[in-house]
């Protein structure tokens, strides 16, 4: 079993994280542009996966349509950049803020319900938003989406985008780590393990869960903003349910009771998708097979597995 909550990242883990960070800083100096692009995409996806894990792995909530908040953040940013002449930094704030507000609204209804209903209600509300975005051609571009979104002027090269995204994602991850180590995070994990007991010791479980959802959705919104900065377009697919399930797979693959598991999961899935995509158009089949292998042989995820065997060998 993992060693409680206090050891969320063992000492060695912090050193390797630092090492990886420095390696990532040097990469753009010698790697071809395509790899820089893929790494940037991985950073964005990692942030999204981590935000989901905040509520599902550490909070125990059936957040089945997390992508909706990601898409909303992306669209908010895109719309501000293309339809208004507001400065870019307004967009940077509006993305996570819109996602957080939506998280508050949807979450408020969902926390009243038990697990499966929570998930189903989320899917319904999220799909409603998808349907509206999909059809509102005049405003959101409908199923075409919005393309050719201008990049903020200070991000003139793909290397600059890379560093920008890396910085923001690292910052967000550090904040997430601090939150998980705080009393809030500890109580959240206690709620995951035994909500009834938490109520009995004086924790307002619903309010706590709602706060967790709002925090997680604002990070998802931030990821959406970064997506637009990188890819310069938005499409309704960002809000579609299948993306939500894909992020779930990333959390599972990495290990959802660990801290950094989802990062690993996101990296693996994006990398696989890109490179497998070169040889075959049946990526979906491979994703399905990976998921089945995970369910049967590695339900604690890659990182969970490594943490377990490294502990046994001590």
């Amino acid at each position, binding site marked *: 079993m993992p060693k409680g909550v206090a050891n969320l990242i063992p000492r060695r883990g912090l050193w390797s994280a630092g090492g990886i960070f420095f390696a990532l800083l040097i990469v753009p100096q010698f790697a071809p542009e395509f790899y820089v692009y893929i790494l940037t995409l991985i950073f964005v996806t990692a942030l999204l996966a981590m935000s989901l894990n905040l509520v599902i792995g550490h909070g125990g909530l059936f957040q089945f349509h997390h992508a909706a908040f990601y898409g909303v953040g992306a669209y908010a940013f895109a719309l501000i950049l293309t339809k208004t002449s507001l400065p870019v930094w307004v967009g940077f704030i509006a993305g996570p803020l819109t996602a957080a507000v939506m998280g508050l609204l949807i979450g408020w209804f969902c926390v009243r319900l038990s697990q499966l209903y929570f998930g189903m209600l989320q899917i319904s509300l999220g799909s409603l938003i998808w349907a509206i975005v999909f059809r509102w051609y005049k405003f959101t571009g409908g199923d075409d989406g919005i393309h050719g979104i201008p990049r903020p002027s200070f991000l003139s090269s793909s290397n600059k985008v890379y560093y920008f995204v890396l910085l923001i994602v690292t910052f967000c991850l550090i904040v997430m780590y601090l939150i998980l180590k705080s009393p809030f995070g500890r109580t959240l994990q206690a709620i995951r393990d035994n909500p009834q007991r938490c109520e009995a010791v004086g924790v307002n479980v619903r309010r706590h869960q709602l706060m967790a959802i709002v925090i997680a959705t604002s990070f998802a919104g931030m990821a959406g903003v970064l997506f637009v900065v990188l890819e310069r377009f938005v499409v309704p697919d960002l809000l579609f349910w299948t993306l939500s399930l894909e992020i779930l*797979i990333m959390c599972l693959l990495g290990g959802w009771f660990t801290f950094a598991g989802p990062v690993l999961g996101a990296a693996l899935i994006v990398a696989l998708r890109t490179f497998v995509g070169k040889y075959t158009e049946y990526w979906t089949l491979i994703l399905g097979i990976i998921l089945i292998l995970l369910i049967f042989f590695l339900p604690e995820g890659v990182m969970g597995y490594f943490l377990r065997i490294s502990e046994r060998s001590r």
Partner: protein
Amino acid sequence: MPGQSFSFAALGSQFLVGLSRAMILFIVCAGLSFVLGVLRVPNVAHGALYMLGAFSAYTISTRIGGSAGFWLALVLAPWVVALVSLIAERALFCHLYQREHLMLLLFTFALSLILSDLVKFVWGATYRSVLAPSFLKGFVPVFGSPFPRYNFFLLIMGPLVAVGLWLFTNKTRMGKICRAAAVDREMVGALGINVSWVFAAAFVIGCYLAGLGGALVAPTVSVTLGMDHTLIIEAFLIVTIGGLGNIWGALVGSLLFGITQSLGVLFWPQFAIVFPYVAVVIVLLLRPRGLLKSVW
């Protein structure tokens, strides 16, 4: 914007269109609800199985040709889907019954991914169409608007399936066991019945219905990749507002969904697709556990 031609004839005609669509939705959702009730797992692969049913119907009907082809497809395609689901269940799914429900749900998701690429592999990415048999082709004037003859067939099939399911779950031994397992699987096991086989039967029956829905819908839409995606969301929503596991709830939900969508076309064609979602949201906000009682 709202304010389209609003005559009672148009209303009536659209109502019937919505009703026929609701019949297909019901057949598919009844299967989903059945699986949900007995196995307590929402089958994400249901949409892919529906799609498989439609494609299988295409192949069978075009191979054999003519009206006979259609009827044969209608009979055989659901069995193809049932067979595929049985293989998936016995080979893999049944080993997971002791695990948490989230794992079962993820398995059905994996299954849906694999199946949809399988369909892509076998049939490719182009549109297919299936022709209705000759006496069901064409239109009949109803309320002054042309109404597809085929839809009358759907309006008969829906209640037929409903009655069939009712007979099965209330009059046959297997059906009663399924109902009992939905409420208390341990009790069923304690009676000496192999619960795993009950689950297998329920799963296969549910998937059969998905395939049947696909085969029935084939002449009315273009059979194409991606038809699983929108259907699975609609099916999930319908099953949720109907009450988890409740087959009559699936009927109520399907009616609500189909009719609000077709009436939405009258009032606000651009956003017709939004109407059923809004209806779902309203229902869930007022009665989050669904309109009818869930099986558990």
